[in-house]
């Protein structure tokens, strides 16, 4: 029942897209379209949550697609979970779009693709055969590509679109090969048939690697991440929220579906590969983010970090599963899925906040913001909640999933392989380092954008954003807090998912006394967000009352003290660049070959002194620059073929014919 309902939702999205194209020519359809998509998404989300909580599973075949196979759709608990995430994010983005979309100069370039994008993400999660899956996957890529290019007048966006479409095609290509190997010589493309004929040995390993490349390139795993920080910020903010918060999760879904469901039992080195990629993504992502000054680019890089954390969880789950530590594997899988939910919430929230700031100031550069907490108090509050959640601080939700991941790491010394024995603690250190650096990154983001004094007139004259957008911000911030305070209910809801993938689930958490979170046993570890929140509240209350009774209440406003040398100029404040300078000196000199050059003019010269900082993207230099160089070189060489005489073309054709005949003759 919920399956048919969700397919109707998808159809409704597509119809809305067509209607948006038709009506978009004549009048501005922003409000009705976003109202409709919000309604459909909310209904879809309700349907998915119902299916998840009632553990329903259903399959359906439509007479579309390839002959003989048709279009297969299926909804089980795993897809229900991801459908709930997709549609919740879709609803948030639609409602935020109601307010934010009014600033849009060309709504006709966004609305149809927005609907198609939502439909395609639903379809990817619903599809049950390789053909439908790849078709929906490609539709999702193309719709989001069109959204990235919505403002194609700016050269940066054109570049972003180009890199994105290249990487997306590459990723789909890898997935195509993965499904080809899974289908085997018989060409069984439905997932049902693939599950019955699971590949073994080298082929399984190859499928795993291809799935990692295909899904990882969409999720933004290092070193396949280069498109992400270009493309996500280029789209309008509510679409950035969808791309960063939701589309990366669809990629995670694809990976889980292929590797944990379709592919047979894992081998230990798969976990090793995931742990290495996840650890590298987590650290590199957050370090890149720390050195950016574009507010949306900081968020995009932080997505790479969080995807890394999710893949660390999945890597642990695979390693434990390969060595038959079922309990630990379930814990690691639950941690990864929990972080999927959390990241979709707080990353959407933070992109909405960046949209609100962008709408109020038309400025994405941190160096020109500042003091927005006075001008946009509600946005600042919601953004603060998002920053606390993403930095993994209690009592918000980010802490819970990171805590669960750490608990899973602590179970790993039992693993027999030496690679994992040495790799897991190293990954634990990388995870701890990236969580700490994320704290620095978001202190910087919030502190520079919202605190201090306005660095430019646009920030000084900003106005609070509209009520509808604010309500979305507050609702998402509320989700982050509530899930962090009572995480047990979410873990129980994830139970059926781990049951279906790993045939077991974590102990029921909502039955624990005082709603504590006890992953394994109370003597091992426990966390109680509710008690913690209450105790913080009580301690705050006690401090407040004591201060009211014992201390002087007089308060005076005066100019800032600043050690006796206050400077009224706003340029004397710390900037985003100066804030990250110590961290750049510590980590950047090795990882990014960061170099500072200071140019001081000679005495008597009135030019200002300049300091330039150069950062080099090592991944780009090592992986992509040689590749693009090789392609250019080959293209240059082959270019000669365009200017030959007819005689030479004919001899080329003849030579090709001879070679092909020889190949056919000598085959076998």
């Amino acid at each position: 029942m919920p399956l048919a309902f969700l397919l109707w939702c998808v159809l409704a999205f597509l119809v809305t897209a067509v209607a948006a194209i038709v009506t978009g020519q004549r009048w501005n359809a922003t409000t009705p379209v976003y109202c409709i998509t919000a309604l459909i998404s909310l209904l879809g989300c309700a349907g998915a949550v119902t299916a998840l909580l009632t553990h329903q599973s259903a399959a359906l075949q439509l007479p579309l697609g390839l002959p003989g196979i048709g279009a297969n759709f299926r909804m089980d608990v795993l897809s229900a979970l991801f459908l709930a995430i997709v549609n919740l994010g879709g609803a948030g983005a639609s409602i935020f779009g109601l307010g934010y979309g009014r600033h849009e100069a060309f709504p006709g370039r966004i609305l149809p693709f927005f609907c198609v994008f939502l439909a395609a993400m639903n379809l990817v999660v619903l599809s049950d055969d390789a053909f439908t899956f790849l078709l929906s996957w490609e539709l999702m890529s193309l719709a989001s590509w069109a959204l990235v290019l919505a403002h194609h007048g700016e050269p940066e966006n054109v570049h972003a679109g180009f890199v994105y479409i290249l990487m997306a095609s590459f990723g789909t290509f890898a997935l195509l090969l993965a499904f080809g190997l899974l289908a085997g010589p018989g060409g069984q493309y439905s997932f049902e048939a693939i599950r019955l004929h699971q590949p073994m040995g080298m082929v399984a390993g190859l499928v795993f690697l291809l799935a990692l490349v295909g899904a990882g390139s969409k999720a933004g795993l290092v070193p396949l991440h280069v498109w992400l920080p270009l493309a996500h910020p280029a789209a309008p903010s509510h679409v950035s929220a969808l791309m960063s918060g939701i589309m990366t999760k669809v990629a995670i879904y694809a990976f889980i579906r292929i590797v944990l469901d379709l592919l047979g039992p894992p081998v230990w080195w798969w976990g090793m590969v995931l742990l290495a990629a996840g650890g590298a993504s987590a650290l590199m992502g957050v370090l890149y983010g720390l050195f950016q000054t574009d507010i949306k680019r900081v968020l995009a890089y932080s997505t790479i970090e969080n995807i890394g954390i999710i893949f660390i969880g999945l890597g642990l789950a695979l390693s434990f599963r390969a060595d038959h530590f079922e309990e630990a594997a379930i814990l690691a899988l639950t941690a990864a899925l929990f972080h999927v939910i959390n990241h979709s919430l707080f990353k959407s929230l933070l992109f909405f906040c960046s949209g609100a700031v962008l709408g109020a100031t038309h400025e994405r550069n941190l160096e020109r913001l500042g003091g927005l907490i006075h001008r946009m108090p509600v946005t600042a509050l919601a953004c603060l909640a998002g920053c606390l959640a993403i930095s993994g601080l209690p009592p918000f939700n980010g802490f819970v999933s990171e805590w669960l991941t750490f608990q899973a790491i602590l179970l790993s010394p039992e693993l027999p392989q030496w690679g994992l024995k040495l790799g897991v603690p190293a990954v634990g250190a990388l995870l701890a380092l990236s969580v700490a650096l994320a704290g620095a990154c978001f202190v910087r983001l919030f502190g520079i954008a919202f605190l201090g004094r306005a660095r430019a007139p646009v920030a000084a004259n900003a106005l609070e954003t509209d009520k509808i957008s604010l309500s979305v911000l507050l609702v998402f911030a509320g989700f982050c807090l509530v899930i962090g305070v009572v995480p047990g209910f979410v873990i129980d809801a994830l139970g059926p998912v781990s049951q279906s993938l790993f045939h077991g689930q974590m102990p029921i958490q909502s039955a624990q006394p005082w709603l504590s979170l006890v992953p394994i046993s109370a003597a091992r570890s426990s966390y109680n967000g509710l008690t913690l929140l209450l105790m913080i509240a009580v301690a705050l209350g006690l401090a407040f009352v004591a201060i009211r009774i014992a201390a002087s209440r007089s308060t005076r406003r005066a100019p800032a003290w600043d050690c006796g040398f206050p400077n009224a100029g706003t340029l004397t404040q710390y900037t985003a660049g100066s804030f990250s300078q110590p961290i750049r000196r510590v980590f950047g000199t090795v990882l990014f070959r960061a170099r500072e050059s200071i140019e001081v003019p000679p005495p008597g010269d009135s030019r200002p002194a300049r300091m330039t900082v150069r950062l080099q993207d090592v991944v780009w230099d090592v992986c992509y620059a040689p590749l693009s160089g090789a392609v250019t070189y080959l293209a240059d060489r082959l270019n000669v073929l365009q200017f030959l005489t007819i005689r030479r073309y004919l001899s080329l054709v003849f030579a090709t014919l001879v070679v092909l005949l020889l190949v056919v003759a000598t085959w076998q």
Partner: protein
Amino acid sequence: MMRDFTLQTIAMLAVLLLAPLLTGVVRKAKARLLRRIGPPLIQPYRDLWRLLQKEVVLADNASWLFRATPYLVFATTWLAATLVPTFATGLPFNWAADLIGIVALLALGRFFLALAGMDVGTSFGGIGSSREMMIASLAEPAMMMIIFSLALLAGSTQLSVMAQYLLSPNVGLRVTLGLSLIALMVVGIAENARIPVDNPATHLELTMVHEAMLLEYSGRHLALLELASFIKLLLYLSLIACLFVPWGLVPANGSWPAFGLGLLLYAAKMIVGVCILAGFETAIAKMRVFRVPTFVGAALMLGLLGALLLFVSRGL
């Protein structure tokens, strides 16, 4: 039940009331080592009282965040300190969060303090926040690696359980424990802004980290932040005592005289710890800011080494 909560209240109040005294002892000991008479032991209480009576001078553009931060920093630090077993283990609140939770609570306080440093928009506030986050970005993972090592040994991240395990006779001398102790001391020094990482007594602008963030605070706000930093020192000393000299910790079902004895023993441990700290601080000079990462990074490496040793062999 009632008894447990009474004990918990006693522990919470003890932490709150003894913390300034501890700082008084450090100052006195440092002064005596330098052949000065030094301020009386109760001087920190007097300072707090004086600050409470003063009016608050707020910078013109200070936001609500700036005014809320002292309360939040105080609340999280106090809470974190009550989660560490001082003289008794297994108190009711100890189960609310494990050692990872305690570290995260301290990080929460630091997050707000760093934001408050940037709120007024002065260059000193920014310098403090920026450097604090740089030091924290190494000290926090180092702390996590120490937790890993100890949790792998004890099979738990709950401090009460860890302390009970380390009290049991089958621990023995282990390389990992030694590495963790050194790393934890380094982290404690860095987190509490002590010499050689930071100088709590300095007001030379370019060398300060923690004080730079507090520069715009005055009156009751400053009193709360000062008290929070006193409590933080106590917290780290209690943590070292609870993990590495756990003798004298009384389980929650102990008798009242045992608790009295435990409290006395705890006080003695604190005094010894503080004297070692004073000696160390007197013997060493403050580092340049960019040598601090090497110092704290060494703690991270020691912690990682300790954890790796355990992954390789459970016997070491």
